[in-house]
Each structure stands twice: as structure tokens, then as C-alpha cells.
């Protein structure tokens, strides 16, 4: 059987982490190709519902990343995001959503190497955890017609 290739979605802000990932590219630092980046203006824009949707649709892991505290292009978007993440992560933990599968990080526009490292460590840890079957089991309608119960 082929090795499990985790599907990982990265939600990143335009000004720091997206630019940081650009720098990873211009620095030609190689990293795992399992991650797909979705660009947001700011971490403040990242709706936690999108994280749930990513799991719904089959993601095995998620990276959420933005500017370091005090570095936000919009001054405080990341501070708002951080508070939201603290509560959302705790709620995920409480409902049994595997918080190991959601990696939060600060990656600045200058941290190309850090981005590569975040991606690689996340891919490695999700590979270890395996596919998110617990979630996938309840995510889709059962193939066979059943009545609730």
C-alpha cells in the first residue's frame, strides 16, 4: 500500500506568512508538497468555520499562520485572531476534535526557513497520526440508505 499522504490546508495571512512562504521559494528551500495555501488578507479574517469545513471535506491537518504579535499589517488582526484561536482550540479539544491536527504558528515575511520547517513538521506529525478517519466517518452521508437511529 502506498504511504499515506496527508492532505493539509494552510490558512495564512497575506502580509507575513504568505510572504514568508514566498521567501521560502526564493530561497529555494525544499519542503513537503502536501500543503496547499489559501491566502487571506489577515489572520483576523480567518473564520473558524472554514477550519471545520476543511476537516469536513477531508483534510487531515490544518495550518493556521500569520504575523507575529505586534507585526500585524492591520495592527491588531492577529491579536483578535489569537484570542479566537485560544477559545476555538479549547472548544475543539472539548468536543474531541483532534487539536494535534491544527497547527497554529507565527511566520513573518522574513522567516522562509521557519515556514518550511512548520510545513515539514506538520506533515510528519500528521503522517504519524494517520488519516483523520474519526472525522471522516461522520462527515459524509452513509453510502447505504439508513434511517436515523
Amino acid at each position, binding site marked *: 500500500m502506498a504511504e499515506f499522504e496527508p492532505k493539509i490546508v494552510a490558512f495564512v495571512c497575506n502580509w507575513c506568512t504568505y510572504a514568508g512562504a514566498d521567501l521560502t521559494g526564493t530561497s529555494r528551500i525544499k519542503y513537503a508538497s502536501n500543503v496547499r495555501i489559501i491566502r487571506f488578507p489577515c489572520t483576523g*479574517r480567518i473564520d473558524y468555520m472554514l477550519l471545520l469545513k476543511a476537516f469536513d471535506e477531508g483534510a487531515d491537518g490544518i495550518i493556521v499562520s500569520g504575523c507575529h504579535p505586534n507585526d500585524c499589517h492591520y495592527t491588531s488582526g492577529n491579536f483578535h485572531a489569537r484570542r479566537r484561536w485560544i477559545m476555538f482550540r479549547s472548544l475543539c479539544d472539548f468536543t474531541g476534535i483532534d487539536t494535534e491536527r491544527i497547527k497554529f504558528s507565527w511566520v513573518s515575511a522574513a522567516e522562509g526557513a521557519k515556514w518550511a520547517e512548520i510545513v515539514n513538521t506538520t506533515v510528519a506529525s500528521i503522517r504519524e497520526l494517520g488519516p483523520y478517519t474519526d472525522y471522516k466517518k461522520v462527515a459524509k452521508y452513509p453510502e447505504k440508505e439508513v434511517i436515523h437511529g
Partner: protein
Amino acid sequence: MSKIGVFVCHCGENISATVDCAKVAETAGTYDGVAFSVDYKYMCSDPGQNIIKNAIKEKGLTGVVVASCSPRMHEPTFRKACAEAGLNPFMCEMANLREHCSWVHEKNEATTEKAIDLVRILVEKVKYNHSLNEIKVPVTKTALVIGGGIAGIQASLDIANTGHKVILIERDPSIGGHMSQLSETFPTLDCSQCILTPRMVEVAQHPNITLYTYAELESLEGFIGNFKAKIRRKSKSIDEKLCTGCGQCTTKCPVKKIPSEFNEGLGKRTAIYVPFPQAVPNKPVIDRGNCTYYIKGKCKVCEIVCPTGAIRFDQEDQIMEVEVGAIVVATGFTVKQPDFFPEYGYGKYADVITGLQFERLASASGPTLGEIRRPSDGKIPEKIVFLACAGSRDPAKGIPYCSKICCMYIAKHAMLYQHKVHGGKSYVFYMDIRAGGKQYEEFVRRAIEDDGVNYIRGRVSKIYEKNGKLIVSGADTLLNAMPVEIEADMVVLATAGVANEGAEELAQKMHISYDPYKFFAEAHPKLKPVETNTAGIFLAGACQAPRDIPESVAMASGAAVKVAGLFSQDELTREPIIAVVNRQAPPVYSSCVGCFLCVSACPYQAIEKEEIKNRNGEVIKLVAKVNPGLCQGCGTCVAFCRTKSIDIQGYTHEQMYTEVMALLNEY
């Protein structure tokens, strides 16, 4: 039905070396709504752009996805190309196949698969893009300059000289700032007052400049091009129109023992006073905290002696509102007072003074008329010690940064001392000599070599008094930390330059950001040194960090050019990537329920309350409204809104949701 064009760039071999570009284009061609799909060697080249333009025209494309480098690189290029072909530029999106894919992965199927995914995400997103138009904002062509030091003066003059109106406010009774307190200036040793005073006068006389001294910013609303500032004009207790500045009142005022702020406490002033002889405006104010009349209810000597009847004891503070299009903040800095350093015995020893106090001693207009006499007994000090980095570069004191100006002014002080006190001995304790700047290093060398100032590399642990002498006890680190003790007559501390008291509140009033030391934050440390994160507000001088005069002036001129650039347009255009609160047909009007939690979430105070009225003019609903002039498009409100009533153009709910769906499903 969408007609999307997908344009896959090889970027020479930058992308095609690891990504099968033809396959990416071919796969993209199979997606619903993709009307045209092609790969090409250089999409950003003229022929490449022509492929896009022709496809838009010939296929009637409704959306474009360029799969090439980072949008941070070429988004403007391709959007412009689309616009030239008649497609709204915001219908163009870019998939980042180079920085995020080909450059970071090996050549294999997985890399091409990723490239395909990245393109698909954007293809699905662009189906939900809307044509957007740039936002036009009118500009009020008057600038507000806050702070009348050299930076504020320079900014005001530069802006005024471009033909625009300037309102300059200064919280002290006179403009001039710290520069007016200085004796000579490094590295040329020309007299500070002599070069500053003409500028001060120019400000006062300039037809485009309205000067309000003894005035502070009360509040600020609005946004770039359209600020509304409330200014508190503190009561001067005189009628400025009647006052001729004859000086009768200050001469006769019975309260004469107030430490003069201008002289850093080394001289005295009266309760009704002009801070210094060259003050602009040269008209007195009454210091109500010290005036006998305000304390005890009687005196009024000044009123009696005033030949023009200009004294107004009942004058009140005035709040006036002005409309301005841009603001230059030039509120300067202050220095740590030596009471911050108990180890140096300040307060106990009158002859341990700050650098700024030394400036007053050395100044010809100062309390000693330029003679270096120590405060305690007026004697001329035979031995003087200068301590650099008093507080600066000292993380333990909470000031890890370098105050920057001290190395130079210490050299200047020591030099002035040697010039004025023949046979005197001067010592400088320093950590490093930072003399980066035109003619700066030469200046320091002159102090050491020509004027015989003794530089000792090391720190001073304490200062104490013994037999009428100040014993400066330190270590010479160049001599293996050998203990050094100097019996000095006077000690000058180059105390750290710090943010003004109240800097934080002022920043909050203006909604600009500040660093951990309360210095105002520039928008970008390298590329936007005079901008703030709030559009239309600029920084000049030492309110941003300790600065010397040439830097402050350069910054002020830089800020002035930014303002002039802003004022060269009648309307501002802004990217339409902003938040919008939905509006619906009656009876709903908007799904917003008016909880206004978004108001506190917005970093820009861009969300306002809008009353929705019926035909009879009755308010039937209060809903949020985003001010397009203020919104910067971060989208924090969007993720916060429970009713999903706010959306951000370019990153809408549908677009972001679709991206997630497109990423994880087959299309």
C-alpha cells in the same frame, strides 16, 4: 455561466523544471466554466500578456487565472493587462506556482498535482469574483502638524511652501522645542538658536500657516483626506490681539521663583511668562498653577500694569474643530531625569545634571550666560565627568535601545567645556562611541585629539560625595576592568531619550500604533519610515525614536512630501478590498442586528452606526456601516460577525468557502 481563462506560465524553466505545465493547463481546461486554457513560457512578457488580452477579447472571458509567480510579485501586472483588454482587473486571480510550488518541491507527480490543486482553487474562487471599482475619497487640502519643534517647524514650512494650508499646534507657549534649548549643534558647533530662530519667525509669518501654541489635540475622527480634529486651546489668560509683548507684566509679576522649564530648572521664571526671549509668539501666558491670583484670589498686578488691558483672568479653554486631510505627528521626545538613577545620587547632588541641563549652562542665553558654572555654588568646575548611556542600552532599566544622539552631544559638551574652561579636565565614560554620520567621527576625534577630552571605556557603578567632591567610581574595561575613581566637580548624565509622557494616549487618540517604548510606530521600518499604519498620518522627528536634528529635519521634509503628494490629488483612489455590511430590500434592510461588537473588533474604527429610516423619517433600525475611507480590508469584522452580515470584497465568504471546497474535492 463563467468563462474563465487559465494561463499557466513556465517562467522560463523556473516553474516548468518541476511542474508539468502542459498537464496543469490541460487539466484546468476540463473544469466547468473554463473556456480557455494555455501554457506559455513567459506570461509576464509582452507576448504573454497579449495571449491573455486576446483571449479576453476573443473568448469573452469573464475571469482570468494566471498561474505563475507570487501575486505579491505580478498581480498588478496581470490585473493591468486584464483592464487593458476590457476586463475588470479584480476578475483576475493568480495561482502561485513558483514560490509556493516549483521552487520548493522536487520534480514529480505530487508537485504537478499540487500545481493543479492551486490552479483549481483559484478557478473556483474567480467564479465568485465581482467586478470592483476603485474607491474615490475627496481630500481636504489642509495639513495638521502636531508639535512645534524643529521637525514640526520644518514639516509645516515645507508643506506651506507647496501652497497648502497648515495648522500647527504646539502644547507649550512657544514653538522651538528642544532645539531652542540647545547651545551649539554638532558637528559644526553653530549656535542652535541662531539657525532655528529664523525658521520660527518664518512659521509665525507664513501666510499658509496658522499657529496655535498652548494647544493640544483633543480628539481625532475621520480618515485619510477627511480628518476632523478637535483642538483644545488652553487658556493663556491674555488677549493675544491686544497684547503687544511689551514685557511689563513679566517684569512686575511678584511670583519670581518658579523653576524655568526652558532652562531645565536651572533658572527661574515668573507666573506670567514668556518661556525665552526668542519665543514665538513672543507673548506671555499665565501659569495658573503658580499665579497668586488663581491660588489666593487676589494680586492682579499684571492686569494693573498691562498698558493695553490684555489680561483675561476669566478666559476659558477653547475647543475648536478643524478639518484636515493629513496629519504630521512631530511631538518629539523627552529625556529620562536622573532621579531614574539612584546610584548616581541625583536629587542629593545638585551637580549631577542631565545633558539637556548642560546645554542650558553652555548656552549664551542660559542662566549662566554661557559660562559653565555648577548649580550648587556657581563655581566653575575644574573636573567634569560625562556619563554616556545613562539608562540607554540597559535592558535592566527597561531601555535596551541606543538613544543615538548622546555620543555626539557628549563629545560636543566636552569640547564646549574645554573651550570655555581653560585648564579644565573632562572625562567621558562610554560603552561604545557611535559616531556614524557625516563628519561625526571626525568631530569625536577632534574632541579627543585636539581638545584633550579623556575617553574612558567603561561604566560607572556609583557616584558619591566626599570632601565636597563627587567621586565617580567606575571601571576601565580597556584596562582589564581596572577600577577608576575620578574626583569631579560636576557630572553630566547623558540620560536616555524616551517617549513623551502621554505619547500612548495621543497615539490612541489618533489610532496610530506605537512600539513597546511608546515611540510611534512607522508603517514599515525600512520602506515606510514616515508613514504610520493609519493612512494619512505621518511621523517626523523624535516621536518615532531618538533622532538628531538633521534626521528630524530630513524626516519632516519626507513627511511633508507625503502630505504634498496626497494633496496633489483632488480625490484619492483606494483598492476596493474593503468590508461591506449587506443591505437588503425592505422590510429587512440588512441582516445586521446592530450588536456593534464589530465596532470594537475593528482596528481602524471604520465601523459606524447607520440609522435606517422609513418614509416618515422614523428610525426603524440601527445597523453597522463600514466607512470605505477608513477600512483597510483586514476582515477581522467579517470573521467576527455572527449573522455573516459583513463581507470583505475580494475575500468574500463565498470565495473563501469555495477555495476550501475546491481544494479538497474533485472537480
